């Protein structure tokens, strides 16, 4: 449990948010041309990183807006948050 600094509302309790999993997975432009392997990769395969991870969150009990977060999954420390569409601030 931790505090999240929503880019729209400021610091709020984590229980107000819902986690949306790994960020920056781009939906294939031409789904009909994908092989089964590529579909599986898009739909199911996840990095599931122990360490610094880029992920999506939604302020579901607040502004209801999606945004991105950089968080260390080994200690739940949040490095930064940034809006949808923005470039990840750290690599």
């Amino acid at each position, binding site marked *: *449990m931790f505090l999240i600094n929503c880019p729209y509302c400021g610091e709020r309790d*984590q*229980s107000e948010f*819902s*986690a949306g*999993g790994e960020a920056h997975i781009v939906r294939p432009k031409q789904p009909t041309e994908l092989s*089964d*392997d590529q*579909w*599986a*990769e898009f*739909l*199911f*395969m*996840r*990095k*599931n*990183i*122990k360490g610094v*991870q880029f*992920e999506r*969150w939604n302020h579901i009990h607040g502004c209801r807006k999606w945004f991105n977060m950089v968080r260390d*999954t*080994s*200690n*739940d420390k949040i490095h930064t948050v940034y809006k949808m569409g923005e470039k990840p601030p750290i690599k």
Partner: protein
Amino acid sequence: MKNKYSIFSLIKNAFSYHENWQRAWRDPEPKKEYDAIIIGGGGHGLATAFYLAKKHNMKNIAVVEKGWIGGGNTGRNTTIIRSNYLWDASAGLYDHALKIWEGLSQELNYNVMFSQRGVMNLAHNLQDIRDLKRRTHANRLNGIDAVWLNTEEVKKFCPIINTSPNIRYPVLGGTLQRRAGTARHDAVAWGYARGADAMGVDIIQNCEVKGIKRNGDSVEGIETTKGFIKTKKIGVVAAGHSSVIAKMVDVKLPLESKPLQALVSEPVKPIIDTVVMSNAVHAYVSQSDKGELVIGAGTDAYISYTQRGSHDVVEGTLKAILELYPIFSRMKMLRQWGGIVDICPDASPIISKTHIKGLYFNCGWGTGGFKATPGSGDLFAHTIANDEPHKLNADFNINRFVSGDLVDEHGAAAVAH
């Protein structure tokens, strides 16, 4: 040679004030090479080693564990054992395990305290009733005992449940599997460790895997904190850390690792002699032999490798527990902890070969792996020894995420993901 545990050995050792019991397993340094190495010294990993040695005559094998055996999810679960899963593939898998549980204490010469006290799943709305009745029918077609109970029968089976129609989610009935129950989780790890060690398996604790060495399409060995160990076959049973191992060898897994919490109360006199679970309000409870209430909470929604979890998850579970069991309102909770569970998109496990020769994965057990420990070990040992799956775990291969032939058990998995 291991001494046999019996009433006579107990009496004999009483004369020496229980100070001369034989060590249950050795603490060996790793050899240079093994025929197979199991990564992960939890229940599933130790069971795999045990059945590799016992049924497939592979004695030159090792289990490497980064902490101490049974210190991960084996020692962190709520010890529930059942096999009332919906699909044929899962019914085969989990009932295979349940049948081994029934004779496990004798097989291991170690009391795992398997207690078939029954597991009851509650229904709180019309859809629950439909789903649970459907599952009951499916179970019976697969030869798994299951009965539907109406509200009065639920109350009779577990009198402390609040069956008032006026609560927020009233109890409208439930299913009961009488062969289901609980076991002592630590004893399962210790029993398998002792049994495997007696057959020559090296159990190497405090030995973290740092890398897997490959030669083209096959494995050559593992880099560990105790040096390089050569082997041709590696079975990975790393639960929540499966993705960490997979990353070392460029294997892609569909897993997400999340904290799953449990808590126990102060010990009290016997009050609940079964296991009661509820999907809809997400609360399940049983009582340990020590007298503690063992309560299972849900998973956090976000990926995390911290073995703690969020407070609001525990709070939600306890609210549901108090509504269903008002008698517990003044109980004090003693301990709370989290374990990292590796969840598959279809809530079913992966027991599979990989595209790398000699590399096998047993993972994705998510929130309910403990119940399958003996079956998982048995089938994974078969897969490693023969380099092909047993018919019971053939459907649980990693390629199902490509073919789309998923085994969707979100309904029977019982823990809200």
